[in-house]
């Protein structure tokens, strides 16, 4: 078994003191350079859990998190952790494409510029490499100065992926990245996700079970804030141990 990039130990989350737990004692290991899918019905906590992995829940008022999330063995919730550093190591792609109202080039260059890269030549290389790796280069290479909003939805989402990988993160979190896209664009993103796991540890949240089955190496099934079952994708989809998993993947509910 290969090295575990992320280890989550008994993570619980509540949105306000005394309210029911949105995540209950979740424990999970995520292998390096693999693609893990989180599945489950809406409201099961899979997106909330994903946002714990780069501390995006920090912005939610009143949220309380207990437990540990170890990235390369170090707790990202330890008091001495620099959250901005963490988010550079753990990138994120959102449900709806959310490019900045800038040009295509400026969108991709945003992260490297934050890191202090000012050299035009090197920024150009980063932009090209990121767009190549997100499969968008051939479509936009002649109009890098065009507004990002002139792209189609699927292209915008690939631009967001390029923007995320431009800072060379170690982990890439994708929160239902295809839920706003048509089937063709979805297929391209899925293909891309499989490609990206060679370089990054990829975690993808999806409400689409077929998608999880198509792209992931490992699958974790969430239900009402609980991690019901996780394991190799083929195993989860053919011989689930838990009755609830079986009911969900066979379409009895969800």
């Amino acid at each position, binding site marked *: 078994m290969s090295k575990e990039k992320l280890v989550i130990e008994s993570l619980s989350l509540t949105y306000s003191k005394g309210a029911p737990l949105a995540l209950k004692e979740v424990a999970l290991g995520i292998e390096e350079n693999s693609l893990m899918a989180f599945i489950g019905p809406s409201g099961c906590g899979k997106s909330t859990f994903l946002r714990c992995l780069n501390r995006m829940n920090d912005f939610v008022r009143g949220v309380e998190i207990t437990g540990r999330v170890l990235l390369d063995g170090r707790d990202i919730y330890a008091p001495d952790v620099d959250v*901005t550093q963490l988010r550079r190591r753990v990138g994120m792609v959102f449900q709806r494409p959310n490019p900045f*109202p800038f040009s295509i080039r400026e969108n991709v260059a*945003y992260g490297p510029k*934050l*890191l202090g890269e000012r050299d035009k030549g090197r920024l150009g290389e980063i932009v090209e490499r990121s767009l190549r790796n997100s499969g968008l280069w051939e479509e936009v290479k002649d109009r890098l100065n065009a507004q990002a909003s002139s792209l189609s939805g699927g292209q915008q989402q690939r631009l967001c992926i390029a923007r*995320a990988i431009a800072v060379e993160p170690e982990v890439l979190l994708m929160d239902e990245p295809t839920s706003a896209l048509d089937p063709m664009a979805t297929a391209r993103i899925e293909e891309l996700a499989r490609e990206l796991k060679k370089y990054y540890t990829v975690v993808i949240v999806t409400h689409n079970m077929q998608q999880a089955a198509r792209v992931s190496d490992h699958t974790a099934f969430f239900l009402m804030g609980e991690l019901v079952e996780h394991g190799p994708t083929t195993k989860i989809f053919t011989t689930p141990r838990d009755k609830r998993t079986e009911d969900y993947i066979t379409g009895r509910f969800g």
Partner: protein
Amino acid sequence: MPNRGETLKLSETAPRAVITVIAMSGILVMAFILYFLTKEGIPILKDASITQLAAGRLWYPVSSPPLFGMMSLIGGSLAVTLTSSVLAIPLGVALALFLTEICPKRISGFFKITLEILGFLPSVVLGFIGMVVIAPYLQIKLELLSGLNLMNASMLLGVMILPTVATLSEESLHAVPQSQRDASYALGATRCETMFNVVLPGAARGIAQAAILGVMRAMGETMVVLMASGGAALLPESAFDPVRPLTSAIAAEMGETSVGSAHYHALFFMGFILLLITLSLNVLVIKIESRGEVK
């Protein structure tokens, strides 16, 4: 298509007709104002040439022969507008940034209500404060001949346009989607970096419009400058010189001139100039708006 003339009922045509009439009467009033200003203003060109009006510094409309040089008045208008804009626009934008990005929700509500009340303040009250509070203070502290001057009027005008600039800027900052802020945070940007690199550029167009609307208000405001600017028709050489903007000249002199005289026409011509300036600023606002739509 059926013959509409026969099938349309009165209940459908009547509201349409009423709305059309109301809308047209609004446009008609606007056109009438423009016509009237032009008709009453243009005759001054019989007594003075355009260059005499625009480049003449001396405004002695009741001496003989009368001098109608408007440069000092136009300069006064530009000076108070510019100074008040320099004071109020950065402050308004900073206030808007503070309200949307930094200040907790509960407190920002209180601030917004305060701003609105400030916007409702009658300008004559502000002018009064300028005369009895600020003027004596400036006069004593800076040892001036008079505290009624460019700086006094500009500070008051700044207070007047601050709510306009701040509220409209706040709206456009607020309209920047949360998802774009999230994208920035997820790339490891701090709050401050997100504010300056994503939120401000995203709201730039709206902020520019807010600033222009503020400038327009400052340009057209009359009572404050009439009361606090000092009223001397001179080109100001320092921020503490008295000035006489176009608006206060019109307001102060219109009651004392005889209808149809050259002085009367000159005052209308100044109104015409003001209208042209605000109109062109308005066109600028529309330009900025439409540039955003074409993309």
